[in-house]
């Protein structure tokens, strides 16, 4: 049985986040006390400052920085919103309350620092992420949840009312939602030796029914399409803290391929954040070559699909041999297949034949 590496990662991180926010407030306070207009400097998130780092195996921000000053009439409003958001995040974390992006948007109105619209509010939260270098989930701001996890993993809650309470993620056969309570929980122990991430809910349920977790000694994560950040961070933690290798199964098309890629190498939008990627994770299928090898029922690629493939071909994250090969193969066969396509060989074929083969291939 695997025990987690660090002693209490969730509690540790919470302390860091709080300290970071307090530090931010103190800096501004000090500036004002000296008789200066408060100002901050943070990395620029403009396109020309986003680079792919082979070292980190993810997108990172370059050296370009922007200075925001309350002296500037165009800055002062977003500046105030940023300070308020920091204050609000601090309150959330301190009182162990969670919130959503929509919540933040409305809460601002109570403090008379209203946002024009949701995108403005979201962008200020991203500013705070950039300044504080933590993701919004660390500030207890969560998006709508839809992804889930299942398998023999014991966690220990830290949320109010459940502190110290342990829970095994095999307890509920639909899987457990990856929400604030789960992401803030400590990972206690697991018998699993790998993690399988699945794009679609149907297949996730099939895997549970077919006892994939037992047969393959695995945890199962449903990404439900593009994996939310909380889920990506959760996968990252399972990989780091419990040393679980990660295998990702998606539809066999450019979009499924990219779902896997974002779990592995992150997105440009999150270039200012760390700990969301799992660079050692493996995309196990459905590959373009699988469509051919397994003679899967397939559909023709659309123009949009093809355009996307050409984009991916040039994307630095797709530099690897496997990726280039599969992109080329897609372009060659001009077909795509869904994970469900395996059902043509019977419901359990994917688990009995395909999965073992792919896992072996990866190992």
């Amino acid at each position: 049985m695997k025990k987690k590496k660090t002693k209490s990662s969730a509690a540790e991180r919470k302390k860091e986040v709080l300290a970071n926010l307090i530090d931010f407030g103190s800096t501004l306070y000090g500036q004002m006390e000296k008789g200066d207009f408060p100002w901050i400097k943070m990395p620029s998130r403009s396109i020309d400052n986003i680079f792919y780092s082979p070292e980190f195996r993810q997108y990172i921000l370059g050296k370009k920085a922007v200075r925001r000053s309350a002296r500037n009439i165009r800055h002062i409003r977003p500046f105030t919103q940023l300070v308020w958001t920091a204050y609000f995040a601090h309150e959330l974390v301190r009182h162990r309350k969670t919130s959503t992006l929509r919540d933040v948007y409305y809460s601002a109105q109570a403090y008379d620092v209203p946002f024009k619209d949701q995108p403005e509010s979201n962008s200020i939260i991203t500013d705070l992420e950039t300044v504080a270098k933590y993701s919004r989930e660390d500030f207890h701001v969560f998006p709508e949840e839809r992804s889930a996890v299942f398998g023999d993993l014991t966690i220990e809650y830290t949320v109010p009312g459940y502190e110290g309470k342990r829970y095994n993620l095999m307890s509920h056969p639909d899987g457990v939602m990856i929400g604030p309570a789960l992401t803030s929980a400590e990972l206690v122990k697991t018998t699993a030796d790998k993690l399988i991430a699945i794009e679609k809910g149907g297949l996730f349920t099939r895997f549970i029914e077919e006892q994939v977790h037992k047969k393959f000694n695995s945890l199962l994560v449903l990404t439900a399409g593009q994996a939310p950040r909380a889920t990506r961070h959760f996968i990252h933690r399972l990989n780091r803290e419990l040393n679980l290798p990660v295998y990702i199964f998606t539809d066999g098309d450019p979009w499924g391929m990219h779902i896997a890629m974002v779990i592995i190498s992150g997105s440009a939008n999150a270039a200012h954040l760390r700990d969301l990627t799992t660079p050692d994770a493996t995309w196990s299928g459905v590959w373009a070559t699988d469509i051919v090898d397994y003679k899967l029922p397939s559909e023709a690629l659309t123009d949009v699909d093809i355009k996307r493939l050409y984009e991916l071909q040039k994307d630095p994250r797709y530099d690897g041999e496997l990726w280039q090969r599969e992109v080329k193969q897609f372009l060659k066969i001009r077909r795509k297949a869904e994970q469900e396509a395996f059902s043509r060989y019977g419901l359990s074929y994917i688990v009995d034949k395909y999965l073992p083969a792919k896992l072996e291939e990866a190992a």
Partner: protein
Amino acid sequence: MVTFEQISPADFFYRNRDIAGFTNPARAIFSSVRELVENSLDASDQSRVPSNIYVRLSHDGEESSEEAEVYRLRVEDNGSGIPARHIPSAFGQVLFGSKYKLKQARGTFGLGGTMAILYGQITTHKPVRIASSTGTSRIYRYKMIIDIQRNRPIILDRKIQVNKDRWRGTMVEFHLEGDFSRAMPKILEYLKQTAVVTPYANLTFVDPKGRLYKFNRSTSKMPRSPKETLPHPHGVDVETVRRLIQITKCRNMIDFMKTHFHRIGERISHKFLKFAKIDEKKNPRKLEPDEIVKLVRMMKKFDGFRAPDASCLSPLGDDLLKAGILKELMPEFIAVCQRKPSTYSGHPFVVETAIAYGGKVPKKDDIVLYRFANRIPLLYDEASDVSWRIVKSINWRKYKVKPDMPVAILVHLCSTKVPYKTVGKEFIADRPEVKNEVLNGVRQVARQLQRFLSKQEYREKERRRLATFSRYLPKIAKFSTELSGKEKEPDIRKLLWSVRKFEEEKNQKLSS
């Protein structure tokens, strides 16, 4: 068999009442009010007494057709009054009048007032009543109808009253068929615009329902009266010259030119006759018809004449124009401009323009245009008018005017001969000289509005700027304090003050 007959001028206008503005029952009632009010205004301009004009439309309950009803129209003024012997002809004979001279007046043909009465008579077959006094001890009262076929009045009754109070003025009352409910908006608009351009007049109107509308004067100053003038050589035709030759007492061409034309002296007279190759000593009475034609042609060609002066015109002037606009529109901003006198084809003219912003200026999706010619509001055919085209052609964004702003532009053209495009006197033709003056006049006031709007915009921006700082900076202080766990908020008064002070300096620089 073809029969030939002669018709009288009254008969002609009876048959062609459309061209004088009596197209339909609504238009007829509007035109009647307008013609009589204008006569009254002209009459008080002559007597140099600020006008008091009383207009009443009453409904006698008689109905004649579905869309028209019979109304009694009464217009009363405190003008110069009409000498007793002229009263019957002035109101009972078409094309009889006092306005054929070369000076600015509202009416020109002596047609309008009589046309209204004529229209009343042919729709109701009722006589007109007139009372007038020139301020003597007597008031003359007439009751008469017009003999249309002979173009002369038939007096039904005539009374002479003792004028105890030395009343001076004229009262006209007659019946006519009309459609008041449809004419009402135009009549009220007409009165309002008349009030704008005649700020020294008291206008009172009582409508058929007994509702009272009052437009009070805001000044008793009146514009200087126009002087009668001689024709400018550029503006005459062969017939004018032929008539002059018949009446002249001059014995040679030098004197003839000097005596009968506008602003011609010895020197210019010599120069012109030399240019025209006409013998200076020639007796004008002996000019042959082809010589007259040649003379007129040469007059048009010769460019050494002096421009006509504007003493025959009576523009309102900046003060009165302002007074009129202020009183009726109460704008936040106003600019007026009187252009220097100019001429087209020998006719002198002066353009006055004004721009008004805010207050009671109607807020439409477009700029409101008020057009006046010789102090008459022009209400119809706006889109055909030269001013409208000019206003449309201007790029208003350049002047910081946005379409939803309440902006009114006023254009007043004074001339001995207003270049109307039609007999209806509703819109002004595109004469290049006139167009230029209107364009420059409108631009001139528009630039002043632009300055006002820029200043306003700047002030508004500053106000918002300071408000932004005072709104947000305290919040930054508050949240930073709470976030950092400090007890006392930092003192940001100095910061706020620094923004303010900086701006005040800039303001001072701007205003100096």
